[in-house]
């Protein structure tokens, strides 16, 4: 009794019970466009936009066409307005603004950054394919893998 009173005075017993969180940690149906798909698509749009800047003024025409085609399909599958969550970040496969600036005047540097984009991006795609369950998104991943594998082989 004394303990309870003391505890009450110490505010422990005076608190209202916490509301029960009703947001499930993960409730995405198999095959749905879920959190992982959304994160992947937003990341890939950001990456491709940076790559197109890297390829301005002299990048291989086929690679430019590939990235544009991918962008179109990525934008079509996204179910929310696009937000660039990674602007300014040093992301795998995504050329930074500093790299793009350097590449604009140094073809050798550009060649190096394009290769880094391809190898790093392929690794990201290979990992992503394991967990992506939404068939249209998986198709885009497969397209992106085909493009990058061919582009790397042609170098």
């Amino acid at each position: 009794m004394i303990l309870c009173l003391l505890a009450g005075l110490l505010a422990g017993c005076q608190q209202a019970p916490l509301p029960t969180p009703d947001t499930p940690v993960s409730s995405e149906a198999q095959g749905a466009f879920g959190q992982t798909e959304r994160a992947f698509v937003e990341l890939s749009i950001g990456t491709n936009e940076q790559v197109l800047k890297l390829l301005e003024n002299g990048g291989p025409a086929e690679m430019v066409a590939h990235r544009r085609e991918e962008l179109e399909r990525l934008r079509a599958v996204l179910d929310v307005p696009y937000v660039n969550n990674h602007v300014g970040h040093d992301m795998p496969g995504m050329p930074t603004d500093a790299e793009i600036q350097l590449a604009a005047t140094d073809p050798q540097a550009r060649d190096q950054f394009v290769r880094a984009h391809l190898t790093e991006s392929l690794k990201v795609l290979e990992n992503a394919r394991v967990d992506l369950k939404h068939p249209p998104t998986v198709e885009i991943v497969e397209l992106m893998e085909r493009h990058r594998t061919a582009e790397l082989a042609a170098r």
Partner: protein
Amino acid sequence: MRKPLFHLATILALAAGVLSVPGAAQGAPVRVAEFLAECPISHRLPDDPIVLPNLPGASHSHDFFGNRSTNARTTQQSLEGSTGNCNPAADISSYWVPTLYRDNTAIAPTGVTFYYLGEGVNNPAAIQPMPYGLKVVAGNAKATGDGDSNARWSCLHAGHVNPSKNFVECPSGTMLETYLDFPQCWNGRDLDSSDHKSHLSYPVAGGCPSSHPVPVPKLRMVLRYPVNGTTSGLRLASGTGQTMHGDFFNVWPRAEMERRVRNCINVVIKCDHNGNHG
């Protein structure tokens, strides 16, 4: 309503006498609502289970603290099944920040403290434990300048150097440190949100807004890096110092968090690592 201090001190003395708090140090308690966890760096990965869930290797580099298992596929259940490196060991939560570099060499922080504080709201007695499983990101990873940043950089043992939202030049023999305060008002419903931020908010004029009515402890992350001298070449994996941000995935065992909120935060007492006080 605030409790008169002398009244509270009497109650605490009584409580300490009756309950005989184990491990409590002797002496007058310090009137700061605080408990803490110190968690050195555990590992480094290009993963982010909150922002890029299930996408291993797709993130900018992060330094992880606390739970040893955190990676891109981390869930509440996976964290529960692992251990952490915090003092206290009971805290198996996961914390992570962007990696700091100088000239492309990664620099790990050598002092990492997570404070849980009652400051910021007028009525700490009403503060409730953070919800179990909470995920939250604080700071602006996309900050483009001081105006949209809430980062804070300063120097340990060099208080005369003004704090800044970007890196500061610390004198020889001192260390670069950064503080980041997490929001402390919860909407009472969601463990996460699409931007990983909007289910919590900062208090307004000492109170939680009606949209986020549940006050929880303010998490303050304090990192100290073995860095001083010029800021040239310093960058975070997310960009300038202004982009400093922190992620938190709460898996404090419920009873451990509840006890600390009750014994340290609600009654405005500074507790030690074990959640006890003198």
